């Protein structure tokens, strides 16, 4: 459905610019949860912006259902890590969720229904009239997820969405993401630097290499559904996959560190 073919991205000009992404090729299938995991600073956010149509590739093509992406498409909704800046503090929770539903495309009654359903599925019905800044971090990120759902995208792109949250809240929201996928049948692309998370919620893991990044390795996660924070993580195959991801990231981090020390290499 969403396809990247030979995508590279260079910031700045040909000679002095920085190559952030090189020769990226992968495809996201309908209904999948795909996580993108890689060492810190490898260019994960660049990949996400390329997939979202927020950034144009320097070469290669990003297509959705065969159409090239030239601007953010209606099929994709984004959830950012920084929920406090991504939600609008002058709008109430329900208004934030409703805001992307353009009155030209979505009737008022339809919009109201979508907002109610989205808030219900993230468990925030009671807080529809609150302001985002009155809620905890985890609840704010739920609002952002509800906003994504209400938009009814085919793909929900999430950029390290739980990076700023504590471990318990993070675990709750990981389970919420998988519930959302089952309930709304949405495809999820989830960028993270958390290794356990990348395996736990995924059908497929894309492990990225050091900068300029590329797909280092691809893992299919065969853990049975529904996943459970305790039993799934006790499964020997979870430990095995987690080990593979960890090893790859450690190697990439070391590679990046040695390049940083000795840039001539």
């Amino acid at each position, binding site marked *: 459905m969403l396809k990247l073919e030979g995508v590279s991205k260079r910031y700045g000009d040909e000679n002095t610019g920085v190559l952030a992404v090189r020769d990226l090729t992968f495809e996201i299938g309908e209904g999948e949860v795909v996580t993108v995991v890689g060492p810190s600073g490898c260019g994960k956010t660049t990949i996400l912006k390329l997939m979202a149509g*927020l950034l144009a590739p320097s070469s290669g093509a990003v297509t959705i259902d065969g159409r090239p992406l030239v601007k*953010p498409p209606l099929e994709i909704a984004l959830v950012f890590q*920084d929920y406090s800046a991504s939600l609008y503090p002058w709008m109430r929770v329900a208004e934030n969720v409703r805001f992307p539903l*353009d009155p030209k495309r979505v009737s008022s009654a339809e919009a109201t229904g979508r907002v109610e359903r989205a808030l219900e599925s993230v468990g925030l019905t009671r807080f529809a009239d609150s302001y985002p*800044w009155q809620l905890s971090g985890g609840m704010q990120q739920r609002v952002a997820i509800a906003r994504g759902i209400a938009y009814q995208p085919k793909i929900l792109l999430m950029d390290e969405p739980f990076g700023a949250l504590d471990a318990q809240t993070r675990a709750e929201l990981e389970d919420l993401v998988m519930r959302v996928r089952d309930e709304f049948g949405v495809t999820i692309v989830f960028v993270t630097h958390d290794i356990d998370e990348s395996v736990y919620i995924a059908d497929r893991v894309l492990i990225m290499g050091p900068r300029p990044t590329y797909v280092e390795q691809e893992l299919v996660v065969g853990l049975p559904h529904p996943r459970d924070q305790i039993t799934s993580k006790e499964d020997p195959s979870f430990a095995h996959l987690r080990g593979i991801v960890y090893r790859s990231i450690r190697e990439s981090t070391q590679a990046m560190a040695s390049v940083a020390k000795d840039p001539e290499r």
Partner: protein
Amino acid sequence: MVLAVIELAARTELIPSRFLPPPTAVAVRIVAEAAQGRFWLAIVDTLAGWALGLGIAALIAIPAGILIGSSEFVYRATRPIIEFLRPVPSVALIPLVFLLFSPSLEGKVFLAVFAATWPLLVQTQYGIRNVLPLQLDTARSFQISRHRVIFRVLLPSALPYLATGLRIASTVSLILVITGEIVLGAPGIGKAINEAREGAAVELMYGYVLIAGMLGVMLNAVFAGVERRALHWHASQRGTTT
């Protein structure tokens, strides 16, 4: 306390009462004046000038500020002109106003508009330029139309700056309107002050000066109140630090 000292100084002729009349005499005089139509007419004339000055300035400065603030190119292109015109004191334009207008509403409004536009323009620009990039990226990722981005993202986000700009512009507009009335003889409180002076009605003159001051304080209070309501969501108004 201060009033008592002034009262005493004036009553004992320590300061000649033709310069500084006793406050009680001023109060008595202005209360008597308030029974007359011309008193209210002067206030209405001044307020009309103030409102027109501020309103026209807002109509110019806010759209222009949005335009300039949302484009780096326009910002760079207009900055030299704005930085040159902005420091020109409005009162320096009075001779020009004499040439262009009769001593009526237009002249004083012209002065007020010229003076009030700049602070509002600059504040609007800064407000628009300070929108968080992520707030715009979010809007862009959801394909939100330009019109809705301006009215529901850019403007609310710039509102704290706009509110400050409006408050400054309101004060400036009032000052210039009264200046215009004094110098150009356009009807209003300024003209009343001048006429009282010419008629050696010192108490009355001080009375009108007092009224002008009270208008300024009242308008400022109104704006501060509206600002508090409109910005209740803003960190500075929430009352908590979260």
